[in-house]
């Protein structure tokens, strides 16, 4: 009886909100007939339910919140497109082209090794610049929203970024960037933030 009484007591909130299955409902009903403690508890809980249901909440117009969410969704979609444009999107739609890209890279490497312009200005790729100008540090970059794929691509080029991962849940991209020897990280971050499309940059680690 003690155990059954406890079980019934536990079920009372859901007896009151009428969500028990028919078997449990019948069990509670039959117990209630002979148990004054449970009857009192049922009455108290019914009053509590009334109190909770009565509690009104002034809600702002949903349309304003909805517009905010849609702006966020559109920004996220744009980000996905941007990452896809860069070749690191989830869909990996660029995979068929990778063979072609590899071939082009090999040819480019051969050309770079042959001293075509010896004695003249050397041809340098972006990657050779970052490798020779400073020590590579890891940063989290966020971009102004919404941002076009072209602007984002240009921002990555302008910052000499090597993309590691992203975007994370906050929309940040983890990138490796070579910090010029003559600059501190803080100075470098300030300079990065001036680049069109970059909203914020934070030092993550060496």
């Amino acid at each position, binding site marked *: 009886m003690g155990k059954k009484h406890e079980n019934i007591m536990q079920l009372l*909130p859901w007896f009151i909100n009428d*969500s028990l299955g028919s078997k449990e409902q019948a069990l509670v009903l039959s117990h209630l007939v002979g148990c004054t403690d449970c009857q009192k508890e049922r009455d*108290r809980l019914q*009053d*509590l339910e009334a*109190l909770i249901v009565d509690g009104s909440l002034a809600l702002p117009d*949903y349309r304003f*919140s*909805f517009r905010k969410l849609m702006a966020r969704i559109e920004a996220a979609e744009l980000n996905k497109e941007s990452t896809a444009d860069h070749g690191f999107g989830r869909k990996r739609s660029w995979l068929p082209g990778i063979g072609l890209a590899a071939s082009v890279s090999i040819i480019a490497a051969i050309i770079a090794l042959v001293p075509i312009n010896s004695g003249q200005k050397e041809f340098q790729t972006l990657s050779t610049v970052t490798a020779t100008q400073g020590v590579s540090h890891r940063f989290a970059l966020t971009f102004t929203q919404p941002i076009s794929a072209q602007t984002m691509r240009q921002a990555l080029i302008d910052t000499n970024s090597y993309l590691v991962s992203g975007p994370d849940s906050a929309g940040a991209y983890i990138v490796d960037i070579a910090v010029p020897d003559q600059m501190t990280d803080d100075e470098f971050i300030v300079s990065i933030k001036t680049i069109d499309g970059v909203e914020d940059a934070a030092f993550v680690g060496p």
Partner: protein
Amino acid sequence: MTSIQELKSTRGPEDVENLKLLQLVAVKDKVAFEKLYTRFYPQLSRYLNRLLRRPEMVEEVVNDTLFVVWEKAEQFQGRSKVSTWVTGIAYLKGIKALDKLRTVPDQHADSLDEDIEESVNLISKLGLQEWLTCGLDMISADQRSVVELTYFFGYSYQEIAEAMGCPVNTVKTRMFHARRRLAKLLPQLQEHNNVASPEKGSRKKGLGELL
């Protein structure tokens, strides 16, 4: 995803309508998404208002929740009602938001310290709704979630367990602790109010027997 026809036989019309909308959202139909948003906005706002106790955070967490609904709609398996699924997301987002705050320790502990005496001073001059709000403030977020989902949303304990991702016995235990804790508050409040304001106290006397 479960078909509408399958669900019509077992679900209420509201859930069938929700599922129709969710299936459209899964193919990125923004008109359907606005309709779904309109349907869930009031109840999510209310639930999260209770769970978080910080009105200024509610809109953001509602939008976090519905952002996930937009992104993951095609992953809905139809094993629960759409509303239970959405509430489950809201619960997780709400708990995550509370964790980020780190200002309210042990938010999801099932047993909080017995510091009711201190709390009574804070709630002594409040109206009944304010009392309820304060009473709910003094139970854990998990307990509040169970109380709100039971009494306001009319969820079964099985649905609450699904939404909160815990066993049904945990739901019952959380409700038990919430009831016990709330029951301790009111007699002291009633006594305090009878001394402080006889008129107010008498108004609350009958209600003082609530718990």
